[in-house]
């Protein structure tokens, strides 16, 4: 949630000083450092969740999750980073139409990922798909929901971020030279993607699946 506060500074300029260009460059350098510091901070949150997973499950067990779904959502999320990169390239070249298409495509991939997590992993809609786990029955459900939940929260904030940036671009707030809003949104999206690259094996691949009867 704190992502928005540091990252969403699409027009972050010190308006009160004189040398416009130097000032923008200086503020941009500070914005970038601030964003990366925020990522370092968040790494401790995700690291804490990973530590929780290994503490409670050990390296030799994991829950029974649907491997097909896991592979599909992971692939979708990885592809979304490509479309995000294409969107950023488009704004750098001043191609606003291509930017709009690619950034909305990225949001769409994000939504597909979320749907995969919520409908299939979480089983929120039993009429479509019966989930394997509940958050409250045992340590497997609790940790799966904690890790995917915290990650999903970041994906959701990323999608909100994308929609804000898309709307600002539509209004012409970004130029090929000045588009910190797009840049921060893209880096944030890639970061959330990288986190999943650590979460996916921790949840789906490491250890042997354990079957626990419903409590």
């Amino acid at each position: 949630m704190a992502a928005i506060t540091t990252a969403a500074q699409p027009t972050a300029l010190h308006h009160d000083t004189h040398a416009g260009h130097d000032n923008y460059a200086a503020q941009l350098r500070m914005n970038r450092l601030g964003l990366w510091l925020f990522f370092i901070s968040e790494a401790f949150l995700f690291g804490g969740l990973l530590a929780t997973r290994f503490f409670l499950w050990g390296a030799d067990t994991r829950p029974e999750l649907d491997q097909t779904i896991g592979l599909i959502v992971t692939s979708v999320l990885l592809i979304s980073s490509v479309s995000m990169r294409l969107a950023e390239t488009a704004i750098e070249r001043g191609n606003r139409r291509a930017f709009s298409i690619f950034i909305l495509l990225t949001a769409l991939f994000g939504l597909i990922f979320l749907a995969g997590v919520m409908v299939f992993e979480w089983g929120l809609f039993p009429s479509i798909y019966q989930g394997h786990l509940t958050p409250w029955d045992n340590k497997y459900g609790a940790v799966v929901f904690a890790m995917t939940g915290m990650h999903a929260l970041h994906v959701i904030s990323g999608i909100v971020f994308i929609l804000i940036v898309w709307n600002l671009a539509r209004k012409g707030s970004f130029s090929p030279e000045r588009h910190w809003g797009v840049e921060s949104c893209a880096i944030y999206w890639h970061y959330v993607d990288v986190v999943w690259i650590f979460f996916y094996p921790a949840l789906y691949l490491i250890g042997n699946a354990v079957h626990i009867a419903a409590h």
Partner: protein
Amino acid sequence: MRIGSLGLVRGLVGYFAGLIVGMAVVVILRLALGMSAWDQEAVWVGGLISAIIGFLLGVGAMSDWLKWTRGIETPLHHGPPAGKPAWTRYFGVDYNHKVIGIQYGVTGLFLLVVGGSFALVFRTELADTGISFLQPGTYNTFLSMHAWVALASILLGVGGIANYLVPLMIGAEDMAFPRLNAFAYWINVPAIVTLLISMLFGWDSGWTAYPPLSLLGPVGYQMVFLAIFTIGLSSILGSLNLIVTMLMMRPKGMTLFRMPILCWAILATSIIQLTATQLIGQAFLMLSFERSLGMPFFKPIYDAAGVNIGGQPILFQHLFWFYSHPAVYVFVLPGLGVISELLPVFARKPLFGYRWVALSSLAIALVGFLVWGHHMFTSGYQPYLRVVFMISTLLVAVPTGVKFFSWLGTLWGGRLIFPTPMLFTLGAISVFLIGGLSGPILATAATDLFLHDTYFVVGHFHATIFGGFVFPFFAAIYYWYPKITGRMYNETLGKLHFWLMTPGFWLMSLAQMTAGTMGMRRRIADYDPALGVQNVQLLVTIAGFVIAFSILIMIYNLFTSAEIGVLAGNNPWRSRSPEWQIPSPVPEHSYARPISIVGEPYDYGLAGSSYVAMAGAGDD
């Protein structure tokens, strides 16, 4: 001027409006999902989250960002709000780091008084054996609240020192992200309100909130979790801002090793706050979810075969102490930085071993990440871990020792003068020494097994925190008071404060440690007369009241001297630091022109040396 135009008032209205709306939404959602309307955990959590957001919207801490999302540019406003008295800017969102620094500092002092009063209440109960007026449950609530309110006050005090001084000391116009700075302050206020509300419902585990006790207690726990999570968010955002400011906004010529030494301490503190804070946030979030949804992170569940398919309580202790031990360094590093900053000024000598002192702050911060397990010697983890954590903990003594020897080397042969800030600096060293020397006894597993959870720990902790933070914080207040207000504090009252508080604290500390070695348990409302600690407990209580009284003298001094104190001039202490080269009180735009750095910061007494060159002062 209408009272409703004060940001704080609008924020509080937003808080309670948000509380009602949030609670109503949860109740409606529960009814829609076919559950019973009332579940106090869910309803309160939903209500309070909404209340905190309501406060931030009401006070206006997010207005600019919300405008940015719609593409509206918002120039930074300078100076007091238009058409209102100047003092009102302290009660609303203001982007000037000096205003925010004062807001942090005053809120911190206020909480110090509140948290201290809680201590006096349960100290009075402890003055004699038997239950006199506090029932054990209420006693535990007061004790737990004392801890978190005082810790919040320290975090805010650190924020006050850092936000006010860092931009001034590096000659910057403001912080790197002024809006984030204001947001990081204001988010504390609804958190504090939430924390104080929790008192009405009670919570009784001490500040550590270990499960399973914290999973079973009253709903006050949920409020504490939320409040501390929010204060943690403030720590993270504030430290991020400080790191960027110090790394990117230094003036020409100020290399890292020419920064004022306090900046190094703040840098080290910020690294801890930026990273480790996430872990206590996560731990309290997990407790909150375990209480609300029953997710078993910490509570064991045994299946038919006797295998634990639930959580483990000790996981919480790992997550908790991964922040809460380094947090102690968050508290003391800025204080130790203040000591190193002030001693050269009052000894008129260079700071001894500047680079070593700078790096020792970083070393304490980094080693601090590896020592959390020494709080868990008796918790029942693998015995070999005790050795690992014992060695890493004892290592902390090395960089801390570097600081002590630097202070001695700075004092040695100096031409000392003893105004109040210097007295408090020396008092801090003496108290921190008591805390420091009692540390290795607790860090050694063999002795800790006997002293764990006794008053010895209480004595050690309070000595390190008073020596490492409270005394230096007071030194800093007296020292920078003329820079902030333009007037001098009353020296007689300042000295009276010192000579009441310091012996009072020595007495309290040593008496607490004595009670501990005699077998007095901590966190307990009553004790057996046969322990023989009655007289010692009475001494601690009396000393506590003396300390509290002396702090009231300081507050009186600070309030009255702002009106009637003698004008201080630009540089009453003849300091070389940049902030003393500009007028007192500091003007709205601190530095009329950019400064540059032409020498070493602490070359006091060296002929012809200079540190700061003010631009346009070539004719000087």
